């Protein structure tokens, strides 16, 4: 039957067309447009792809990109913005495979040491750091050191930097007739917390992070460990978690937050503590310097009432941490020139002015350049805290944060890839100890075993 045959043919042809469409689509990129592409030698006309953490100042940068960067250089920028944990997962997958899906990514001083050793990052020493307009010498030294590889080359340029410090309610202190020393010790802070607990309805003596996560409770706890003479590992990779220094610090931290800390401390992190201090539910708070801007913001009910003191110490002279979100270029990037131009803009000396023009000086990414701390406009808008922040960052020493030598850099972390898992496990147990589900000693015993397993792998590598 000829009609049947024709119908068969038509069906087969239809299927063939469908298959061909699919095959064609298989190579097709989506509505986001094609991926990164090269342009001329100076990078203009090219498109770079940037993997970025979703923090408020990064979102500002995204908005400013078109007018302040693309229009001037002809380089288009495509962003993927992710929350912090997804970003870390994606960045390590992307960089370890050298997949070439991104040219630039936000990495921190936690990643730089081992990313650079593994050869995943393009050195910025030859172009960006040498550019006189970029002015590498303007970058705060501890931040630059933290973003430098073991070979002495710069591998990332900072977008913002932070340390930690102690916030306290000046008005509450005055009412109670108490004073905060400029460089308090932890013993003094514990004493103050005891006196201040419940002086106003619902007010905790101090707010400290208890939420699980290596970037949550482990960060402040590790700074306490450092200053009380403890460490995660000695210089030969022996785990020291159940030894004196660490155990004293962990017991001190857990007891302080249990006795005089915020409600629901086991689940309170940076955001919860920030809310508590803003809403008058805490008299003191030890955390990142980055919170100062929010506390002094015009809509903050505690603006002007906050005092700032250095991170409390015990056996060391200072104990503040050091953290920086910074731009690194993937070695497999095919648009290195354009990517370098992007970093020169985003970490450059003019960016602060552009961000200030759009959002005001209070919202400028802080903690990276000396010139920002010398800028009169910034000094005016951040009068309450800029000196304290600058001092905190300048006095941080990631190579030597405690009383003994360390096998890897890092203040509030140990800059090895295994620390993300180790720290997260440990943070869970510390959080349980704060909640009263386990004792500190039992928690430390189990963390010690895990830490020693990690230490052993490095001992083998040393041999």
């Amino acid at each position, binding site marked *: 039957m000829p009609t*049947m045959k024709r*119908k*068969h043919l038509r*069906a087969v042809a239809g*299927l063939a067309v*469908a298959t061909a469409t*699919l*095959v064609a*689509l*298989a*190579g*097709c*990129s*989506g*509505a*986001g*447009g*094609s*991926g*990164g592409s090269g342009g001329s030698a100076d990078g203009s006309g090219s498109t770079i*792809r940037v*993997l970025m953490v*979703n*923090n*408020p100042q990064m*979102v500002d940068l*995204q*908005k400013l*990109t*078109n007018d302040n960067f693309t229009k001037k250089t002809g380089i288009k920028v*495509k*962003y*993927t*913005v*992710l*929350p*912090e944990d*997804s970003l870390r997962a*994606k960045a390590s*997958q992307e960089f370890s*495979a050298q*997949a070439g*899906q*991104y040219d630039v990514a936000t990495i921190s001083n936690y990643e730089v040491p081992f990313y650079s050793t593994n050869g995943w990052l393009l050195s910025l020493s030859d172009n960006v750091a040498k550019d006189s307009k970029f002015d590498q010498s303007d970058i705060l030294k501890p931040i630059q050191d933290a973003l430098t590889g073991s070979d002495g080359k710069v591998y990332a340029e900072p977008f913002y930097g932070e340390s930690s410090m102690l916030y306290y309610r000046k008005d509450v202190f005055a009412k109670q007739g108490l004073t905060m020393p400029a460089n308090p010790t932890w013993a003094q802070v514990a004493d103050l917390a005891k006196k201040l607990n419940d002086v106003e309805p619902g007010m905790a003596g101090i707010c400290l992070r208890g939420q699980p996560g290596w*970037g949550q409770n482990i960060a402040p706890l590790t700074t306490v460990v450092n200053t009380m003479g403890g460490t995660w590992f000695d210089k030969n990779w022996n785990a020291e978690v159940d030894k004196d220094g660490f155990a004293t610090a962990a017991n001190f931290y857990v007891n302080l937050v249990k006795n005089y800390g915020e409600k629901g401390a086991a689940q309170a992190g*940076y*955001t919860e503590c920030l*809310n508590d201090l803003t809403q008058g539910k805490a008299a003191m708070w030890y955390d990142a310097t*980055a919170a100062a801007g*929010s506390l002094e913001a015009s*809509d903050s009910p505690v603006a002007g009432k906050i005092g700032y003191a250095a991170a409390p110490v015990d056996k060391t002279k200072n104990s503040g941490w050091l953290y920086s979100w910074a731009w690194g270029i993937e070695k497999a990037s095919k648009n290195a020139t354009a990517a370098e131009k992007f970093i020169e803009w985003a970490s450059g000396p003019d960016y602060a002015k552009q961000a200030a023009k759009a959002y005001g000086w209070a919202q400028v990414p802080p903690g990276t350049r000396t010139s920002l701390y010398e800028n009169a406009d910034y000094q005016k808008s951040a009068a309450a805290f800029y000196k304290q922040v600058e001092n905190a960052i300048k006095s941080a020493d990631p190579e030597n944060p405690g009383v003994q030598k360390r096998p890897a850099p890092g203040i509030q972390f140990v800059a090895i890839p295994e620390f993300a898992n180790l720290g997260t496990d440990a943070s869970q147990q510390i959080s349980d100890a704060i909640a009263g589900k386990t004792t500190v000693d039992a928690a430390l015993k189990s963390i010690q075993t895990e830490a020693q397993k990690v230490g052993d792998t490095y001992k083998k590598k040393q041999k």
Partner: protein
Amino acid sequence: MSAPTIPAPTASVAPARRARVGKRRTSEAARKQRRRNSLLALLAWVIGLIFVAPIVWMVLTSLHSEANAATNPPSLFAPLTLQSYANFFGSASGASPWPPLINSAIISVLATLVVLVLSIPAAYSLSIRPVRKWSDAMFFFLTTKMLPMVAGLLPIYLIAKALGMLDTLGLMIILYSAMNLPIAIWMMRSFLAEIPVELVEAASVDGASLLLTFRRIILPLASPGIVATSLICFIFSWNELLFANVLTSTSSYTAPVFLTSFVTSEGLFLSKVCAASIVISLPVLIAGFAAQDKLVQGLSLGAVK
């Protein structure tokens, strides 16, 4: 008229009483039945409200400012604002939501079409004209769903990288088709098994070819099933996050990946995420409403079996 209705005094007393008692009984039973019904209705309402409550909360939160959305206890009567929706459409970051939405639409529609094209003939050969050992084949399809998805992630990432297919729509279409195919075959088989074989035989006696039988007999009868299957495949493809997050980057990223970009560890984001979730759920909701009649038919068609 009235004469026949007057009961005979002697003979009718007992039946009348019986009838009264019976009436009382039936009315009691009816009352019981009514009470049970109203209890069931109440239960249905409660369950319905429990299901709707999170969505209502999401809508309400999306209409509050970030500060009001984060308070504890929740501030239900805070002033409403569309700020979070403006934010979704790029007022803060300048990032347009359209590329990921278009990507999601292309991927989900094409993956669903591929699944239909492959699953209907497969289901036919497993139900109407069963191949030998068809139940083994069915079981084989099911086993492909037994491996945890995440176990396949790394190999797929490496293969896609080697083939240069990372961040392409085609890769996602192929993956989502493959993921949904076993479910679609199982669903379509149960729908096609409902169609009496006699109908197909009658058509072939009348001289209809396989294609004609398919088009004129099977497709119309199975259309509720096809709609239900397509909708399930579309929803699964539209909502998938794990693979999309790992395998796409700046060009082919989908709506769920875009949704996660509103979460931040420094600052408040509840309202923004709620607004984004609502906008991103809309296409699925609309598809569901549009297909509602067929869907109910389709679901009950499968359920009878």
